[in-house]
């Protein structure tokens, strides 16, 4: 069988092509999208859809492509590539002159979205190594791709950060597997609970880790640089909350896909100028839509809160399709589970303290790393539901995600007690083999029409 290069290598090529896109006309673009295959073309067209203004294209060019290609080019420039998980603030790495972050979940999501065969070849490769078929598909896909570095088919990381001990066993374990197999150093954190002692431990481990990374990269973090990174983060935070405010309008002027663009930026470029411009774009497009009262459907029927992750196997047939059917995707745990804050900082020490607090309360670390995940998860989403006027919630993630599946009952009972119905989708955000998109659409429509919109038949009641 042909050996397929890793996700980063393949993604970087496609993204470099997309960087040239501005020069093409709309019909040429559509032609190009069609050339890349049904699903891939759909994905590219979803990003370029006019409801997103130029935000989608901006994300591909200035956020995703930069993120991926900086990692690819790092080697030539003698910089270190540091692999980070989804629950670690990339701004710490951006504070280094000579290190670049690469986010694992970004890779599997990108793979699921836009590459031929999606993430499946990498998942299959992991299976052939003996990884069980029930481990988180996002992690398994990223692992399979990373390990192709053994054959020179992928950009090998120089070091890895694991922020998941205490939040996710599967993620931590896969990172350990990769670090052991590729023989690269791994820096680790540990979150025990929500108390002051737990924070104290986390903080100490974090500061140790920073020292270790400084030593590894051979560079002490520069004060001006890290302060700038936090200030950029603060600007992003302000814009993020402004966007959040806009979501309170009905119909929602913020397109469904902005949730992904927002958290995609958070996980990769936060702290950089590119992230600031990205959020400015999102806000600009959303404000314009508000002013014009734009919404793809006649009526906004459902305002849905995705309590875990979204679906990444087909943006067009899910997120855009939802909007066309009057179903708003308000936010999900990856986008809003971290509740970003503003930190006024003047020194390197202040800046590090700010990053530690951010990391401690990061999306999913906050919930999955809580003393009681069921309760914290439920509380956070009841708050968001009330804040954003959600009228329903939808759950999806990896089909065998032990944490969320284990405590889904608690969330459902809690949300129902507040009058918010919850739909549980049995699919897998990163693997279409589990449930096809058409089945998911059917489930969502059944739920929205009958339970949320309370479609009622005109009963004649003659026989009862």
């Amino acid at each position, binding site marked *: 069988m042909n050996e397929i290069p890793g996700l980063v290598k393949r993604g970087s090529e496609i993204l470099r092509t997309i960087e040239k896109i501005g020069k093409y006309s709309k019909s040429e673009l559509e032609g190009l999208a069609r050339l890349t295959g049904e699903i891939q073309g759909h994905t590219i067209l979803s990003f370029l859809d006019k409801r997103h203004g130029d935000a989608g294209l901006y994300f591909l060019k200035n956020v995703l492509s930069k993120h991926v290609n900086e990692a690819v080019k790092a080697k030539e420039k003698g910089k270190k590539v540091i692999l980070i998980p989804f629950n670690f603030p990339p701004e710490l790495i951006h504070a280094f002159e000579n290190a670049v972050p690469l986010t694992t979940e970004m890779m599997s999501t990108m793979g699921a979205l836009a590459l031929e065969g999606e993430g499946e070849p990498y998942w299959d490769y992991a299976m052939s*190594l003996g990884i*069980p078929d*029930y*481990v988180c598909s996002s992690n398994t896909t990223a692992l399979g791709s990373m390990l192709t570095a053994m054959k020179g088919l992928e950009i090998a990381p120089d070091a890895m950060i694991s922020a998941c001990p205490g939040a996710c066993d599967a993620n931590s374990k896969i990172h350990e597997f990769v670090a052991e197999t590729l023989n690269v150093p791994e820096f*680790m954190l540990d979150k025990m609970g929500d108390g002051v002692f737990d924070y104290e431990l986390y903080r100490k481990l974090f500061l140790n880790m920073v020292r270790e990374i400084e030593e590894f990269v051979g560079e002490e973090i520069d004060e001006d640089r890290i302060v700038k990174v936090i200030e950029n983060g603060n600007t992003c935070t302000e814009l993020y909350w402004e966007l959040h405010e806009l979501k309170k309008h009905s119909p929602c002027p913020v397109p469904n896909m902005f949730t992904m663009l927002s958290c995609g930026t958070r996980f990769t470029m936060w702290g950089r100028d590119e992230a600031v411009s990205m959020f400015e774009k999102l806000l600009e497009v959303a404000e314009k839509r508000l002013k014009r009262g734009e919404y793809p459907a006649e009526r906004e029927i459902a305002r849905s809160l995705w309590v875990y992750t979204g679906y990444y196997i087909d943006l067009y047939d899910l997120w855009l399709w939802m909007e066309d059917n009057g179903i708003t995707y308000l936010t999900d745990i990856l986008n809003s589970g971290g509740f970003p804050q503003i930190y006024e900082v003047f020194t390197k020490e202040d800046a590090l303290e700010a990053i530690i607090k951010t990391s401690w309360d990061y999306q999913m670390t906050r919930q999955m790393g809580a003393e009681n995940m069921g*309760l914290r998860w439920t509380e956070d989403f009841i708050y968001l539901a009330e804040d954003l006027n959600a009228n329903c919630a939808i759950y999806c993630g990896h089909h*065998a995600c032990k*944490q969320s*599946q284990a405590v889904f*009952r608690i969330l459902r009972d809690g949300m129902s007690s507040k009058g918010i119905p919850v739909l549980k989708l049995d699919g897998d955000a990163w693997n279409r083999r589990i449930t096809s998109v058409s089945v998911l659409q059917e489930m969502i429509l059944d739920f929205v029409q009958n339970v949320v919109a309370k479609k009622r038949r005109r009963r004649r009641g003659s026989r009862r």
Partner: protein
Amino acid sequence: MSLSKIHEIASTLENEYVEKWRSEGNAVVGHACIAMPKEVAEAVRILPFRLRGAGNADTSTADSYLSRYNCSLCRSCLELVLNGSYDFLDGLVRVRGCDHWMGTFDEVQHAKNPEFMHYFKVPHLVNGDTLEFFSNEIKRLKEAFENRFGVEITEDEIVRYAKVQDEINEKMREFYRLRFKKPRFYGSDAIAVVVARESLPSEVFLQLLESAMAEKKKVDFRAKVLLAGSPLDEIELIRKIEEMGALIVAETTCFGGGSFWNMAEYDGSEIYDFLAAKYLNNLKICARMFGEYAFRKNFIKSMAVEAEVDGVILQHNKFCDLFGIENAKLRMDLEKDGIPVLVLEKEYASTADIGRIKTRVQAFLERLKR
């Protein structure tokens, strides 16, 4: 006969000694991990009782709380908690084991809201900071017991019981060595012994262990095998595997040799710091400790050499992320080192599944040319 008594204890939940213990006004607390420092509880006559599935495969009530994607051992235990089988417990210590257990305890709280459930935090890393944290966690556990049961726990008493644990650990190692060169016990006996230890007051257990060790048997086998992987208290399963000739002469699992083999002896130092180091270092045998893969691989290899085994069985319950991934890596590395490996994925207490397991074990024995 002490060994048959031990088997009886291992196959029931509330045994006669626990009943007696309770009738004397002493408390029993449940927990689910070998990171629980027994001496802290025992110092004030609180019996730490380790939760186990006891071969219960029916999880219909638990499944309406947890999901089918959660580990079947946890689902079995939750079922027993919900159906009242564990009502003899005076409380629970929610030891941070793996994520499946965390979810299980969340659901226990949601469904049953026990009067006493203390969250005992166990780090996933071993270093100066985590040891200091864990030492304080042990103090907080002590305080939780004091507040709940209205007792005072002195350091002297903890030290006294730490020495009792040392004695038991030493005896256990002695007992395990009787299985190595010329095996005089079955693996099913050894698992029963470990399970009994987790279900009895120390004094009672020590007596039973000593007399059981005198009951050496003639043991038949085709090959000697080491068992590693996720927690396994299924004595019936071990018995079926051994009936085929694959004698389990050592385990690195936590219902098994892993629970005590690397436990340090009390050295006279500050007791809480000592306990933190003792329990956290021993816990490196579990795949939930990160950055310690080399320790586990070496533990399996050195145990395999000492016990002179022919091969290693790496097993895990379906949906166990930690050992599922660990076993994939171990299989590659051990085979590279010339140690034959069989990976077994199974459901907890699935006697119905025995045919599938038997085929694999028989072929493994044939591979070992035994």
